[in-house]
């Protein structure tokens, strides 16, 4: 079974791109399954089901979604193996821009959209910098010039990635993406011992443990102070 991870800021078009791409793979007889990781709420699983793609969803709730992802991805892989998928897609939202749910040697795709603003590529951390493929969406509603500027900004942040433009509504470009996703020679049977491409955002302070009161005396653990003296 192949495994790929797709992530990107909320509402960038991850699910639309994934479903359109999965559909072209399924037409070629590839058995695709999906897992959607989200934080508080998602009904994207319904969209997957409607497209005929077996899906599981996981909500991290009060936990950091990335920590939740990495503690569950192994079980998810086992589910995929049990279901006999050829390709398992793990989709997760990057909620804090410091997210990095990518695993070494597992194909990683970042989806971002043209409407998010030209400085966004610089604001997104390892999720964009360490992706193998960057998919840019919503190109059908902005000008050619803006598409070119946006793509060049993405390229400056991650020159080694393949950059693709995909229309999540019509599926234009999805077939092309699909040819890069599935390799029948690849078999991922276990993730045990594999490593993340980059460490996850860390914190362990009193607020992680449920503290709600504001004030110096309630702050314990890994706490950092804003520097207001900097010019």
């Amino acid at each position, binding site marked *: 079974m192949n495994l790929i991870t797709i992530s990107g800021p909320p509402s960038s078009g991850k699910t639309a791109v994934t479903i359109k791409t999965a559909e072209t793979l399924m037409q070629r007889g590839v058995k695709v399954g999906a897992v959607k990781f989200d934080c508080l709420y998602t009904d994207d699983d319904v969209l997957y089901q409607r497209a005929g793609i077996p899906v599981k969803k996981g909500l991290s709730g009060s936990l950091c979604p990335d920590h939740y992802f990495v503690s569950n991805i192994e079980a998810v892989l086992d589910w995929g193996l049990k279901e006999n998928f050829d390709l398992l897609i793990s989709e997760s939202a990057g909620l804090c821009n410091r997210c990095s749910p990518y695993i070494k040697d597992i194909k990683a795709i970042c989806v971002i959209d043209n409407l998010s603003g030209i400085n966004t590529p610089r604001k997104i*951390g390892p999720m964009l910098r*360490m992706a193998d493929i960057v998919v840019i969406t919503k190109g059908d*509603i902005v000008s050619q010039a803006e598409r*070119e500027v946006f793509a060049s900004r993405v390229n400056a942040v991650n020159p080694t990635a*393949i950059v693709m433009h995909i229309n999540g509504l019509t599926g234009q470009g999805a077939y092309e993406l699909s040819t890069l996703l599935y390799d029948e020679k690849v078999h991922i049977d276990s993730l045990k011992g594999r490593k993340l491409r980059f460490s996850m955002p860390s914190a362990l302070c009193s607020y992680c443990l449920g503290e709600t009161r504001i004030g110096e005396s309630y702050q314990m653990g890994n706490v950092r102070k804003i520097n207001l003296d900097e010019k």
Partner: protein
Amino acid sequence: MVSTSFLIQSSLSDLLEKYPYLHAFFEGQAFAIEDRMHQTLQQILSGIDEEASEDSAFDATTFLLQLKEYIEQMQEFLGEDQHRLNSISILPGTDKSGTSEQFEVVELHKSTITSIVGPTGSGKSRLLADIEWVARADTPTGRTILVNGELPSTDWRFASARKLVAQLSQNMNFVMDLQVQEFLELHARSRMVADEQTVIKKIIDAANDLAGEKFEPQTPITSLSGGQSRALMIADTAILSTSPVVLIDEIENAGIDRKRALQLLIGEEKVVLMATHDPILALMADQRIVIKNGGIHKVLKTSQEEKNMLVVLEEADRKLQHLRTKLRSGEQLQRI
């Protein structure tokens, strides 16, 4: 080739002098470059401890790899002759039912216009996608696309600085909150154009020439009228876009001189492809591709009779425009 050891032993100021485009690359990085100009990369990298690198999500190995890749891409990009595409050839594949397309080859030359006609869902987008992806019998249609008569490298598919196709369509808008001048500067910089101001002036002049109503370099792009936006997009794509092929999805017949717009594009040696059902636009093309059931059904040269008809249609169009102008200025219309 750039060697990694050369890179890490160079100071930032040396690197920036040698590769000025690295500004864009360094700006997105974890360390501020201004106060470290005289340090070598090695010094800078060794100054970032584990905590700082985790904090700013910085990975030195990836950084060096990407720096090298960026320089190599840019060198290749800058060394290229932008106008080296002379023609695109489409070799036949099959339609949706698997029937072979009945043509030998469709040639699209630079500075010519090809219109594409066919009902919605007939496969126009697939044809355009085949061209954009530089298909080599590996898309659902099985078509093959040649560049300058040869099977090109797959670089066209992946290199972000050199996409084969630029697109202009009705529902595209400007979304950045910038003045025309600033906007074009941004685009010119992303292309690393040498003589920025001359190019920008050329684009604004060309756009004003196409649009009925003139705008200023200081006009915010989001407050341009529909016709002005369209004119600016076309002028910018003609003059500043790297893509040698321009794909147009209809041009609205309001506030813009469509004939001049097309002339501007072919004057800049673009291969122009235009999906349209407007007879005036379709007949301005040198040839038209008829799509049916996912396949190229026919390729028609614009006949002499059609060219004569175009003259009549353009005359009728002028009359209509004239009435529109009169209406706008509050006059009563007389029978013409």
